[in-house]
């Protein structure tokens, strides 16, 4: 898989619209401190910490009702948090609407993909952001850039001029992911991208996720499939009942460990202890500490807090 990915990386070369940024690699782009969200009496998220680096695939995993979707919606501007801080490039930001998120460079591909079945691939990709010459659509430029983008992603789409209704599930997912890249985002959030796909199509989408990482995007992968997480993720953030329940380096763990964390069989004592304490204000020092933790195994974000 890596060999193939490397070859693709070489193919990218000059035609890339969105070159990976070599200068800023591996810095946290998006950081979330002690974020909370409640819906009436239900506390969907409590003091959750989360961060994404450039060129990194972070799996966000947890059981149903763990708060994954709520966190994704907070990041993509669908909901606003009740407490906590979201930092983008180290600056605190407010993400009040999906448009805000897109402007910052956070693109989200929701599970339902939100494609228009009657429009062709090019039209879907550029929907709402069409290129124009004068007042009319610049179909040629849009089609050319679509091909460039799809080639970079090594996507197998038979034609960009057929309605997306004629595409398979994996191809539709590919189109939706390619569309999220149009605004050149730094973070791409994928909500259950493989949930409805067969084996071959899942492999296709996983390959796509690896190429997003090569391009330097930070990828947040929400998934129920441990196989997918083990295959492509660099790091897994486990949520349980709306709280952090551990951060794991995928290279060092087995899927059993992850499942144990998800189900609560491994109740992360550190996380529990940390959440009982009052929330400290986020600080630069804290961010550094979290980055240090990045490479360690099986530790909660707050594990190092004195």
């Amino acid at each position: 898989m890596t060999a193939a990915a490397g070859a693709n990386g070489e193919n990218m070369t000059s035609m890339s619209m969105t070159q990976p940024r070599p200068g800023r690699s591996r810095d946290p782009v998006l950081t979330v401190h002690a974020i909370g969200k409640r819906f009436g009496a239900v506390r969907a998220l409590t003091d959750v910490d989360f961060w994404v680096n450039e060129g990194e695939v972070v799996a966000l995993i947890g059981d149903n009702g763990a708060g994954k979707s709520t966190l994704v919606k907070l990041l993509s501007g669908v909901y606003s948090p009740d407490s906590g801080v979201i930092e983008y490039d180290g600056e605190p930001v407010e993400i009040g609407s999906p448009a805000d998120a897109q402007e910052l460079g956070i693109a989200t591909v929701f599970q339902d993909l939100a494609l228009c079945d009657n429009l062709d691939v090019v039209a879907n990709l550029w929907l709402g952001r069409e290129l124009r010459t004068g007042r009319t659509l610049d179909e040629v430029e849009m089609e050319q850039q679509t091909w460039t983008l799809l080639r970079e992603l090594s996507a197998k789409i038979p034609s960009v001029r057929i309605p997306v209704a004629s595409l398979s599930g994996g191809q539709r997912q590919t189109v939706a992911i390619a569309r999220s890249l149009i605004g050149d985002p730094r973070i791409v959030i994928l909500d259950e991208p493989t949930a409805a796909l067969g084996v071959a199509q899942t492999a296709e989408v996983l390959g796509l996720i690896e190429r997003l990482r090569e391009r330097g995007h930070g990828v947040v992968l929400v998934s129920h499939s441990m196989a997918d997480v083990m295959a492509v993720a660099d790091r897994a953030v486990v949520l349980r009942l709306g709280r952090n329940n551990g951060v794991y380096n995928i290279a060092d763990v087995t899927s059993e460990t992850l499942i144990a964390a998800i189900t609560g069989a491994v109740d992360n004592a550190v996380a529990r202890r940390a959440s009982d304490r009052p929330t400290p204000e986020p600080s630069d020092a804290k961010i550094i500490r979290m980055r240090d933790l990045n490479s360690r195994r099986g530790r909660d974000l707050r594990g190092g807090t004195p």
Partner: protein
Amino acid sequence: MTTGKELAPPLAPESQERLFSAEGMRAAAVSLLARIRGGDLGSLPVIVGLVVIWAVFQALNPVFLSSTNLVNLTMQSAAIGTIALGIVVVLLVGEIDLSVGSVSGLASAILAVTFVQLQWNIVLALVAAIAAGALVGLLYGFLYTRFGLPSFVITLAGLLGFLGLQLWILGDTGSIGLPFDSWIVEFAQQWYLPAWASYIVAGLTAAAYAWILLRRARQRSAANLVSQSYLGIGIRSGFLMAFLMVAAWYLNLSRGVGVMFLFFLALVVVVNFALTRTRWGRAVYAVGGSVDASRRAGIRVDRIYISVFMLCSTLAAVGGVLAAARLASANQSSGTGDVNLNAIAAAVIGGASLFGGRGTAFAALLGIFVIQSISSGLTLLNLDSSVIFMITGIVLVLAVTVDSLSRRKRAAAGRA
């Protein structure tokens, strides 16, 4: 799955885009056949239907395809065709406007009252009549986007309400005649292109079509994309040229090409351009495909709805003005009766899907030809209007059946 075969081989990127390209005429024919078999019929059923209808009526009454009758047919098509054009746009976003007949009647009443009774300038009277249509659409759009009422109900209320307004504006007079020497009446009744001008228009249209195709082909080949061959462009524009020339020649055997009909054709072309070549048009199709996806793509869906309702009502008002000018009068029955239903039926018969997101501006043109041909043919056979209504009803059901069947087939073949 029809696409299965094309997907399998892992191709070099350069050859990928040529996968579906039609190289040469034979390949073009093959891909057309495949599309039809997959249920993507386009305008084919309407054109076939029109040919059948014309053949049947010609067999029953040789006057039907005479030049005189066809000239009448074109002139009868213009007013309701304009209304049907608005319906096509509303259907594209998956909504409906049932009140176009009443709105057209309202516009003709406003034109007659302001122009004849109040002695306004004709241009001012026309602007007032058409602006009234735009206002009606604005009201519909507001009610739809603000309160979420179904367009069916809003426009049903509009059908009643604006019929009432039309009667109120006409007052006790009931019927107001427009002066025959005003240019709007002459435009609708007596202005025909001289023979030489009709050939020039036909030639220029074909030349413009060829030029657009040629420019697109050049841009695409410069961008290294699949482009149409010069031969293909030549054949297409040659066919168009021949068709337009023959049509113009045949109509010129009688009175010729009516200016009002030309105006309708121009409207169709303009709306087609707006739908296919602008961001607004792309948004209209997107909203018809999926409102949710459009909203998330950043399209201001409410504005699209409002603009579409306004365009439909405005075109209905224009149609009402044309109808009044052609009759040289506005009366209490203007826009009532079959106007509404014929306009909606024309749009659907022409191929605008009731499910939204499918159809082109040319659906209005083809559909109104079908409707008017039936009406004209049956009138020539001295058949009662009762029969005309029944047969039009049957054709409408047939058209919607074709739409529904091809939709099912598309779903089975995996096309939108």
